[in-house]
């Protein structure tokens, strides 16, 4: 079957001769067309919708409908019992920005769904996963809408929206390992599939795919043909993974990394050892790499910058008395030094804060503002500082609050007062938890704002304790996987951490009832799963430092909980009985957790 802008041609594949041809009415051209094994649906200019059926060597126009607006996309993928024939047609519309469901063969309008907004639907797809029917609708800005579809009534329900990229998307189905998948081709190609009746999305490690179609032949079984600009690839889909890992050799030791979305660059701080020279010496670099998380921007300045803190580390000094803050811009793919500020100590941490720059320098927190001079140059200018730390290594902010991690004094909560241009301490954790850090523990604290006394309000209260067994170098808000609106876990905030031994981990804040349920599950898993050598999981996870050992509190071990899925059926049944929840429900809930990472 060939569709051109003026006709639909039925060509016999064996004698290679034209058997029949349908012509568009004069003055109209075919804009959009879709087909399956027995049906053709096309749209011409002027809002004409034409339905053809393919007979034995004949094309027969069955129905014609006049719509009030232009048609942007069509689909008649069979999702009912007959794999060769569809009873429904999906139609995307210009002007009123809607998607409509028509019945076949009579082209009667069944459902009309306003999409909202101003972005035209560019691709529409009827598909079924795990026996459930869906309508997928891709917009011109890279967003995807999905609906549950009742194939008997054509009703659309349970609308969800997810962002897959920034460019128009083309949707195609394909089969991999006997399972239906959908390929979303765009600037960020994605595979859509279903598991446990939930739609899931997995990135594909390709860029800028414009079209894809299934390609199944003796030479390339179960393959895909993938078209990019100036390139055609035939490939297969690997097992779907959550993370794609690429190694980029640097030849140096990377110590810090920062991503700047506007310039689509990473900045890496690295160091190079020089064993060639007689003595130990190091050179430290800031390197720019070409291609979503954090950048540094100032008030009254629409540019984005990388800020780097340094220290002059002299072996004979107890601690640095000098350092610098360097402000770089990315211009033409290169780092340009815009401003430089000398400091009276080591700059351990920098943070964008209220359109200004917050720095941790030796035992002090310093706030700088970004000043534009008349000659067009910029300068970092000191606004105020806060003393009250022993060695301020970490700074994090939220709103006007500043959290300081101190080498000895644990955690302080400060607040910035705009009117006074001052930073004041609000609360502190009085436990000596730097000892906990050396014993590889995690703990959480809470500010007691309802306390009766100043002392209570000024004390951060420890509310969670846990033995991780790893030294954490860095915490960052973020997620290792795409956040999915389909899933109950999609709304759970997560923090990623990296450790000295190269572990990347995820900590999730669970809703209370989910926590209670999983805690019960964890208790029962401990009875069933025994550690190697008879070691006790409960003991291993106890918060343990030089001064005390207490049971883990308000923390769950996700690794232990997810090991439920690896148990044999009889052990699963045993646990199912103990927690009074079916095995199917338990598997479903634990699998949902695995989607957090």
């Amino acid at each position: 079957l060939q569709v051109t802008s003026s006709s639909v041609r039925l060509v016999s594949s064996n004698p290679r001769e034209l058997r029949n041809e349908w012509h568009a009415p004069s003055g109209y051209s075919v804009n959009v067309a879709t087909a399956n094994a027995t049906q053709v649906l096309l749209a011409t200019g002027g809002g004409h919708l034409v339905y053809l059926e393919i007979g034995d060597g004949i094309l027969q126009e069955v129905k014609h409908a006049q719509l009030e607006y232009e048609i942007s996309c069509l689909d008649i993928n069979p999702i009912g019992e007959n794999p060769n024939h569809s009873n429904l047609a999906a139609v995307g519309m210009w002007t009123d920005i809607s998607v409509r469901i028509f019945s076949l063969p009579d082209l009667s309008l069944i459902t009309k769904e306003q999409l909202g907004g101003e972005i035209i639907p560019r691709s529409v797809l009827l598909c079924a996963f795990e026996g459930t029917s869906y309508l997928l609708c891709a917009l011109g800005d890279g967003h995807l809408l999905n609906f549950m579809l009742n194939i008997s009534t054509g009703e659309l329900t349970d609308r969800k929206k997810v962002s897959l990229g920034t460019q128009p998307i083309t949707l195609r189905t394909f089969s991999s390992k006997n399972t239906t998948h959908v390929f979303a081709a765009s600037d960020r190609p994605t595979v859509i599939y279903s598991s446990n009746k939930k739609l899931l999305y997995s990135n594909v490690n390709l860029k800028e795919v414009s079209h894809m179609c299934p390609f199944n032949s003796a030479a390339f079984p179960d393959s895909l043909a993938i078209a990019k600009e100036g390139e055609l690839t035939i490939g297969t889909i690997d097992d779907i993974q959550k993370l794609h890992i690429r190694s980029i050799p640097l030849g140096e030791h990377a110590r810090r990394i920062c991503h700047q979305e506007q310039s689509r660059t990473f900045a890496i701080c690295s160091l190079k050892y020089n064993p060639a020279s007689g003595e130990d010496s190091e050179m430290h670099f800031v390197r720019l790499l070409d291609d979503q998380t954090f950048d540094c921007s100032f008030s009254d300045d629409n540019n984005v910058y990388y800020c780097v803190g340094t220290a002059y580390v002299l072996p004979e000094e107890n601690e640095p008395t000098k350092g610098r803050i360097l402000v770089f811009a990315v211009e033409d793919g290169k780092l340009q030094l815009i401003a430089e500020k000398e400091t009276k100590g080591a700059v351990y941490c920098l943070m964008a804060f209220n359109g200004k720059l917050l720095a941790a320098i030796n035992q002090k927190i310093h706030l700088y503002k970004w000043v534009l001079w008349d000659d067009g140059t910029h300068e970092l200018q000191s606004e105020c500082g806060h003393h009250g730390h022993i060695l301020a290594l970490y700074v994090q902010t939220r709103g006007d609050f500043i959290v300081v991690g101190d080498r000895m004094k644990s955690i302080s909560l400060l607040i910035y007062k705009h009117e006074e241009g001052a930073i004041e301490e609000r609360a502190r954790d009085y436990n000596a938890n730097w000892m906990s850090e050396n014993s590889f523990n995690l703990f959480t604290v809470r500010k007691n704002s309802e306390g009766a006394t100043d002392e209570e309000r000024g004390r951060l209260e420890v509310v969670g304790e846990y033995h991780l067994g790893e030294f954490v170098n860095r915490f960052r808000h973020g997620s290792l996987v795409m956040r999915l609106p389909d899933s109950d876990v999609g709304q759970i905030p997560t923090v990623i951490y990296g450790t000295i031994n190269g572990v990347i981990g995820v900590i999730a804040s669970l809703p209370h009832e989910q926590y209670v349920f999983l805690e019960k599950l964890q208790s029962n898993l401990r009875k069933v799963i025994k550690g190697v050598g008879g070691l006790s999981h409960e003991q291993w996870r106890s918060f343990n430092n030089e001064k005390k050992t207490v049971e883990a509190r308000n923390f769950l071990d996700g690794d232990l909980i997810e090991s439920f899925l690896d148990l044999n059926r009889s052990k699963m049944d045993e646990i199912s009985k103990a927690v009074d929840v079916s095995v199917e429900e338990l598997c479903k809930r634990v699998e949902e957790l695995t989607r957090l990472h």
Partner: protein
Amino acid sequence: MYRSSNIVARVFDRQICTPAPGTSVHHARRFYENLVPSHTVYEVECPDHSFRKFTDDGQYLISFSRNHQELIVYRPRWLSFSCKDEDCDKHDLPSRAKRFDSFFSQLYCVPLASCNELICKDFFLYMESNQFGLFATSTAQIHDAPAVGGAVHGVPSIEKITFHLLRLEDGEILDKKVFSNDFVNLTHNMGVFLYDDLLAIVSLRYQTIHILQIRDSGNLVDVRAIGEFCREDDELFLNSNAQGMAFSDKNKQLQLPGNHIENHMHQGQPNLGNSFLSGIKQRLLSFIFQGLWNEERDDTLRIQRLRKKFYFHFQDYVDLIIWKVQFLDRHHLLIKFGSVDGGVSRNADHHPAFVAVYNMDTTEIVSFYQNSADELYLLFEQFCDHFHATSRNSMYMNFISSHSNNIHALEQLRSIKDKASSSAQFVKKMLASLPFSCQSQSPSPYFDQSLFRFDDKLISATDRHRQSTDHPIKFILRRYPYSLKFKIKPGPEAGSMDGRAKKISSFLFHPILPLALSVQQTLFLQPSVVNIHFRR
């Protein structure tokens, strides 16, 4: 690897290097070499209180009012201020740095003393697991009280001693225990020892070791009393045999109510004390006898040895009294015995003394030494840490320097030993510190002799007043580059006006932070000079 003692190099190193298993704490403690109390605020404006100590978790500063009536508890904070000036590091600290409440905030003030009792300001024990504090109040000593009811002649009497158990979080008094007409040596916790949740209180006057348990609920519960009797049912056994005696009715009338320690046996039957040796004394004598008996196989020689070493000294052994006690673990006590004259004396070192290990569960004496015994000295030198029993859980006390865990302290000990003219005299002097007083050592890392070297005649981890000099006390790195890291100078910045007045100093180091108080006072009734030393 970049090897440097600069703190930035250390911060970077710990992000990429995992210490060898079990040594992460040792590595972390090296940061104390860089973070030191290098700045002094002289003559802090502070309340006129007796500052006792920081609790070992660093959460509280314990102090008592000048009139010894009230307990005042502070939270150590840290000088915290905002500044506008970019170069404020060069400027003086703000004026509020001179005020005590910039570093410490008062949590509460609790009156403990009542009637004629005063707080014993040299006594305080901290139970870290529950954050309980144990305090003591007492009336004045009566030196010539008659030795009635089994009391030891020559030991003073105190009409009322009260132990108060408080929850330090809010200052609530949880329980009390009263001793009447008794004597307990409270100075520097000498007569009381706390091990985990077990408390040993030595009644010097009645020669009884009271073992109490501190429950999580905050109750003080009697466990046993060792002295007159050893087993809990010894008293019952003796009473059943004494039932026919004429004093039995009188006993009941003399029963004392409530929490008072019952001394009815002592008060009601003075003759009984003369007839029987106390249970602990009998066990001691039998241990000595059995030891001598077992040393010799030959009957004739055995009798000679017994005559010379046991019977000849029998009365001296009988006259020994319990001086001091410490726990070695939950089941064993280390008990020092000596003559009555030395029991209360400040110069106990000059009196003959003996040390015994007693098993509370089996009520046996396990070993017995004279305080000049070489055998005991070897144990002391090589296993000193075993005598510093504190708790099964407190790892950090492992870092308190002793000559069995610190090579520098051992070298120092051996240096003193080599210089000693008399080995026996040296041994006796060293062993005079046994049994150790409870919680008498500061866990501050600045006293860790692996990290710093300092003159321990002027300052040390041991909780004691020192003769004060006008020279700053230097803390010097133990490791390369062996540099001077900080100084501690008690007293006014310019030194004392009256150079000849005798001054004493005490030092309170925070167990974790680079923060210390120094308190200097003259023997006259002048106000103390308090300095705060901290990392600026």
